[in-house]
């Protein structure tokens, strides 16, 4: 239907209660203002309507948001529906992508993601899995350590670099030099403790091993420095200075720790001297191994115990990320000491074997301590992530089971489809809000002869099971509860319940499966949707909708049965 200018003026006059001439004058004035604004290149906004603007010689009209929303009130609450099945034209791959993941599938996906990413596997997986991964990570770390061990051996063999550097220099730092190999080993242990290395966490999981090597060189590792025999004197001196400072620091630390532990009032200097003496002896072993067999048992027990004790104390102070790392450290606790002596003689190994039982006890203690410390102080970030994931899962679960109303998560409870006996159809179309409100009241107030007759008849015949000869899904017949998990073709969205029921009855008379559902709308209150048929898939609903008769085939949409 076309509302021409005269009809529009008439409508306006009726609504305003004014004369048609006056209305026409105002309308002409408005049009003149709009045209004038457009002629000047400006846009003209009419409140409640939209914006008129000029584009060349044409006038463009952009309706405002309110108007756009109001004319779509029938479709209130409808959102873009993600297809859980692709149309037949599209390839199956896309169907897989478009399928909306069920909660179980989402959980599986999360698990898959967790298994792919190490940090999350640590969170979601068992500790055993974590240990396995760590063991896998350890092997390359040991491979990394091998060249270092070799370098240490070379260092022990090579006193040459120091000879090259000059004897004066060596004499000055003689004591320190001798203590250095042991200190270096402790340094390495300390570095191994500090670096995430064997047990890689987070970003370090994919850390490049070669990068580690280079980085260890940058850190001033004296071993790596001395490993280069071709280096100049300056290089050695610079490296040596660094190692000096480090060894000084470590000596201070060791002395402080010894003071704390011993409690016997021994001064740090005395202990240092003892250590240095023992170390001197250990180096003398290299020269005369046979003489030391007798002396070692008496002399070397103290320094090794002291060293082992020191290292254990260091470990306790430093937070350790994992089990395997601590085990490595325990291994490394002994290994460097062995290296220094075993390079030229196997006698010390025997001594160490004797010492092993004592060390084992200390190891067990340290292990239990480190395990306790690991258990009591897990990585905070991982816990936070775990808590977030658990909370998100909980919220999703609450939403899914309807405890909380989360749009997009909470499933809409299906409404029972109801059919009503044939009754006198009321002509209720999708009337505009204003007129509809005016019409609704009389409909409710005026006594309708039909309602008086209705009580005699069954008011609502809810056929919950499919009658004989009727398919579960289909366009015609009577609604079946079992088919309420499918799709339906919405043909009317009405604001009055009576009008919607009348439409439903009318459609039922025509043989359709007429469903009635209520849609809460914030803007329009409660809407009543009358829909046709129950279909298993959207595709079957779309095919059936194309075959609908003229009034229904013009304006419909397919949605899930609620």
């Amino acid at each position: 239907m076309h509302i021409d200018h005269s009809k529009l003026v008439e409508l306006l006059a009726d609504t305003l209660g004014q004369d048609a001439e006056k209305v026409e004058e105002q309308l002409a004035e408005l049009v003149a203002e709009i045209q004038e604004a457009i002629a000047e290149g400006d846009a003209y906004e009419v409140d409640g309507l939209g914006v008129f603007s000029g584009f060349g010689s044409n006038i463009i009209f952009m309706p405002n948001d309110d108007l756009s929303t109001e004319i779509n009130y029938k479709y209130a609450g409808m959102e873009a529906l993600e297809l859980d099945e692709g149309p037949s034209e599209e390839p199956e791959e896309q169907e897989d992508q478009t399928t909306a993941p069920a909660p179980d599938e989402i959980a599986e996906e999360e698990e898959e993601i967790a298994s792919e990413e190490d940090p999350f596997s640590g969170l979601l997986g068992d500790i055993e899995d974590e240990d396995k991964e760590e063991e896998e990570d350890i092997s390359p770390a040991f491979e990394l350590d091998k060249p270092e061990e070799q370098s240490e051996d070379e260092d022990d063999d090579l006193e040459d670099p120091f000879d090259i550097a000059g004897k004066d220099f060596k004499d000055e730092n003689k004591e320190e030099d001798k203590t250095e190999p042991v200190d270096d080993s402790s340094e390495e242990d300390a570095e191994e403790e500090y670096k995430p290395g064997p047990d890689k966490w987070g970003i370090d999981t994919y850390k490049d091993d070669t990068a580690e090597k280079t980085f260890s060189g940058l850190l001033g590792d004296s071993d790596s420095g001395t490993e280069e025999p071709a280096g100049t004197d300056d290089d050695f001196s610079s490296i040596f200075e660094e190692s000096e400072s480090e060894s000084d620091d470590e000596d201070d630390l060791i002395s402080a720790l010894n003071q704390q532990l011993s409690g016997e009032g021994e001064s740090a200097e005395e202990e240092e001297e003892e250590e240095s003496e023992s170390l001197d002896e250990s180096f003398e072993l290299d020269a005369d191994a046979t003489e030391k067999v007798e002396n070692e048992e008496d002399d070397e027990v103290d320094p090794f115990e002291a060293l082992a004790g020191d290292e254990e104390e260091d470990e306790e102070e430093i937070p350790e990320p994992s089990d395997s790392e601590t085990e490595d450290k325990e291994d490394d606790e002994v290994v460097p000491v062995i290296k220094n002596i075993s390079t030229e003689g196997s006698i010390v190994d025997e001594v160490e074997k004797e010492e092993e039982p004592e060390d084992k006890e200390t190891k067990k203690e340290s292990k239990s301590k480190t395990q306790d410390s690991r258990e009591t102080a897990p990585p905070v970030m991982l816990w936070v992530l775990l808590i977030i994931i658990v909370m998100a899962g909980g919220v999703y679960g609450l939403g899914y089971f309807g405890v909380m109303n989360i749009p997009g998560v909470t499933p809409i409870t299906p409404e029972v489809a109801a059919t009503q006996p044939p009754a006198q159809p009321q002509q209720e179309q999708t009337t505009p809000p204003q007129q509809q409100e005016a019409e609704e009241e009389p409909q409710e107030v005026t006594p309708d002869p039909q309602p008086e007759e209705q009580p005699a008849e069954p008011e609502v015949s809810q056929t919950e099971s499919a009658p004989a000869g009727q398919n579960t899904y289909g366009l015609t017949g009577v609604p079946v509860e079992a088919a309420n998990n499918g799709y339906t073709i919405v043909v009317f969205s009405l604001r009055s319940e009576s009008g919607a029921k009348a439409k439903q009855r009318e459609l039922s008379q025509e043989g359709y499966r007429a469903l009635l559902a209520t849609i809460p709308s914030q803007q329009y209150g409660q809407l009543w949707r009358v829909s046709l048929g129950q279909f298993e898939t959207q595709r079957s609903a779309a095919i059936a909708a194309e075959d609908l008769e003229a009034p229904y085939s013009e304006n419909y949409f397919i949605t899930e049965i609620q």
Partner: protein
Amino acid sequence: MTDEFIETLGIVLRDQIIMKNSVEIKGLGTFKPVHQNQKQEKRADGTNVMMPPKDTIEFTPENKG
């Protein structure tokens, strides 16, 4: 031209558009309701979605050219 007139014009126009009627304003143009059926669209992330139907207003200026 009063505010009441402007408001009433908007309401009348809206109601007529909802009733699928086209409205002509002399000297300006014609407002015509256009229904867009629900359609399937493919999002950028590859998922297919069924866009709901909607009605829009199509304005045809009188001095179109």
